[in-house]
């Protein structure tokens, strides 16, 4: 399946990646070649084959419902770009 300029711009927007026109152009070329290679998957018949998400046939373990995490706000916020009054700050969100 070919990938178009618009597909790259759409993916970039969904992924919140800023791209200028020229970069987008380069990615259309790269991604086309990668998808061409990926298209080899279509050559095999997978009718009735269950998708495999995890390499082991294991099931989800469960955790006891216990509070074990202390308040580490200071340590966690020491690597934050902008905080005030214990809050993470971001540019104004308009609802």
């Amino acid at each position, binding site marked *: 399946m070919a990938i178009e300029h618009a597909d790259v711009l*759409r993916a970039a*927007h*969904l992924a*919140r990646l800023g791209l200028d026109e020229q970069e987008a152009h380069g990615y259309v070329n790269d991604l086309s070649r990668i998808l061409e290679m990926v298209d080899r998957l279509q050559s095999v018949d997978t009718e009735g084959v269950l998708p495999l*998400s*995890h390499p082991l046939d*294991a*099931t*989800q*373990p*469960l*955790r*006891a*419902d*216990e*509070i*074990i*995490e202390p*308040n*580490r*706000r200071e340590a*966690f*916020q020491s690597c934050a770009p*902008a905080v*005030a*009054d*214990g*809050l*993470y*700050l*971001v*540019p*104004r*969100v308009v*609802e």
Partner: protein
Amino acid sequence: MQWETVIGLEVHVQLATQSKIFSGASTAFGAEANTQASAVDLGLPGVLPVLNENAVAMAVQFGLAINAQIPEISVFERKNYFYPDLPKGYQTSQMAQPIIGPGEVEITLEDGSTKRIRIHHAHLEEDAGKSLHEDYHGMTGIDLNRSGTPLLEIVSEPDLRSAKEASAYIKAIHAIVTYLGISDGNMAEGSMRCDVNVSVRPKGQETYGTRAEIKNVNSFRFAERAIAFEVERQIDLIEDGGKVIQETRLFDPDLDETRSMRTKEEANDYRYFPCPDLLPLMLDEAYVEHQRTTLPELPAEKRQRFQHELGLSAYDADFLSSSRPLAEYFERVKDVAGDAKLAANWVQGDLMARLNKDSLDITESPVSADQLGGLLLRLKDETINGKAAKQVFADLWERKGESADEIIDAKGLKQVTDTGAIEAMIDQVIADNPVQVTQYREAEEDKRGKMIGFFVGQAMKASRGTANPQQVNALLKQKLDALL
């Protein structure tokens, strides 16, 4: 044209676990910002989720309560989108294989009739944090304490046909989750939130109209108002030749209207895929059966029992089973007093009126179920009469005594049932009121019944209210009629 409203609801219930769905941080409400956001809740690089066993148990209990299928395997998926209060850039949720399959919920309508609403599925997911839009130096503040709080999203089929039905449905879900104790059901704190899908169609048409999704409906009342507004908007739009578009709308309780959120929606594509950090969840039959043994009696069962075993009216049974604390209060009163109807009347009547007046919840009642039951026991065994009972209740409310018996003793409210004593009082009343006696004797026979009330009143007064009114009445009639 006659229009029919079609409503489906997605109810998000915050589960009452101690810790988050995927981390060991506390879920307590109201903590200082970001003090309950652990490394996992913040989505720090390298962290991984591990599923809380109670979130699973609670979801399964809900499933059993609505007679749902519980699939052996369910899968967590990632719903990908960017928002500042969504730390990882995805919400861990369930899509193709939810933990709870199809089931049904019974709702009770105003006329006492019931209707079954099909549940499409219910799934587990994590809550996001909160954006605080107050001005922080021109910026928005993000509090991630709520991030990772477990939610059970309950998705109904489009089986609801009016705002009233929708409200009854939300109440039914509220009753079930609070009965099960899997949520505190506190809507003011956001423990239950609804998204409402609304469409209209000409009556008789089979296919559904285009629906709008109303987000952020956080109370029974808002649900009714939001739906009422939205239905009218859609009908007006269609009748004016317009078309309803599929979109997300936000309910604004201040303006009492819904408005389009289209701008935020553009190009949404959540790219769901199985979360590679979590494995398929397997629940075998033994697990499900074990959960079944933990279930309490549920509202629908309780309603049935109140009606058919205790002989209450449909209305009373529905009202008294509407919340678990109320039902438990009522049942305790009933057990102590030994009379279901008397208990039902007092709980719904005097107690509710007093609670409403002081804006108190049943759990905050100054009169305990044991106290009220003790009072009704004395009313039933005729130790006191109805009038004295009201006085004892008032005193209990004011905490003027520990028990009905204590107040009855202290105030001498015991009903006088000694025939000799009552006869003496009556003789005195007759002797003191010769004019009225003469009037009684000269009155037509059918008027005398009414006139006897005067003598009863005098006799009760003389007994300071403690005489048994029925006894007084009968003796008076006997004595006055003897004078004829």
